[in-house]
């Protein structure tokens, strides 16, 4: 019998706060690595159940929102190629009030279980939303506690890390990922998050026009030392 020996696939663990963070912030990068065979696990701390956008015109209420957003996120995961999705079942807008040690332990256990080559999360100061900063802070702590072999990166919005000096970082601290071949998947995932994107008319314009709104690059801030041998423009060694 012939056995096919495949190199063990690379793994990426993304720990974010709300359904749609993965798509809106770094959907191109996730789609790119998924297409290269990287096994991606996405953790969403909440179901985004306290969101303000209720569809346009509104068809969601506060009590139906968690199920709707979970369904939309599952679709977006399919569009991006993310195979594993988990929720931490924290209520939206309360992540920063959850016991930090307990949450750190939960995420450390996940890191040990998934054994990822790359961990993505929010920067604890530059995350923007309190839930983002809070999940970034505990994930960073968990990464350090596990003394994990992989690399930690912080996701960033749009082109803000094109000029990292403005935030006290240098170009060496930033990895720039070319995602232009994966913008169709990113747009599909934007549309999967329908109740959140319905209000943004450009998302629903014809594909060519809508795709024009995306940048060709997504930027990541290094959260752990990377070896000199690391190829530029890549999160993996």
């Amino acid at each position, binding site marked *: 019998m012939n056995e096919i020996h495949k190199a063990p696939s690379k793994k990426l663990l993304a720990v974010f706060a709300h359904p749609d963070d993965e798509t809106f912030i770094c959907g191109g990068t996730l789609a790119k690595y998924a297409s290269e065979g990287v096994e991606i696990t996405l953790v969403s701390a909440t179901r985004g159940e306290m969101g303000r*956008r*209720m569809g346009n015109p509104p068809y*969601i209420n506060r009590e139906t929102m968690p199920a709707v957003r979970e369904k939309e996120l599952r679709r977006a995961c399919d569009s991006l190629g993310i195979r594993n999705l988990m929720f931490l079942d924290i209520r939206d807008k309360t992540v920063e009030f959850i016991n930090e040690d307990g949450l750190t332990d939960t995420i450390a256990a996940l890191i040990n279980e998934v054994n990822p080559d790359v961990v993505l999360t929010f920067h604890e100061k530059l995350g923007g939303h309190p839930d983002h900063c809070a999940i970034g802070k505990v994930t960073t702590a968990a990464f350090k506690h596990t003394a994990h072999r992989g690399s930690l990166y912080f996701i960033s919005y749009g082109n803000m890390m094109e000029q990292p000096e403005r935030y006290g970082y240098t170009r060496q601290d930033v990895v720039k990922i070319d995602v232009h071949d994966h913008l169709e998947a990113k747009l599909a995932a934007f549309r999967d998050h329908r109740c959140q994107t319905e209000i943004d008319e450009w998302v629903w314009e014809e594909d060519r026009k809508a795709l024009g709104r995306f940048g060709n690059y997504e930027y990541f801030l290094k959260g752990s030392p990377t070896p000199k041998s690391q190829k530029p423009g890549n999160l993996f060694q």
Partner: protein
Amino acid sequence: MNPIIKDQVEAELQSFVGEEVYIHSEATSFVFVRNFKVKVTDAFIAGEGSYRVALQFDGHGWLRMEALTHVEREGNARLLLAGYDDKGRMNVALHLGKEPFPE
């Protein structure tokens, strides 16, 4: 959610008077409370097109909200009121339930 019909919501609010009620109340961008339990002693609705609702509770309390536009009645146990803007964004919500809302 359906646009509020004042008389209907008035009657539905009355069905919670005298009951122990769990409240979810939020001004979306600023504050929410979930599952505080009160005994509703009186309930009011006022306004046209966009409505104000006030609850009196426990003989000495008030909860008043405005900018409510839509309603969803779920059986006898839950009444969901919400206020949306013209793009479907939530401004306020007021839910009354005879059982706690999911945490």
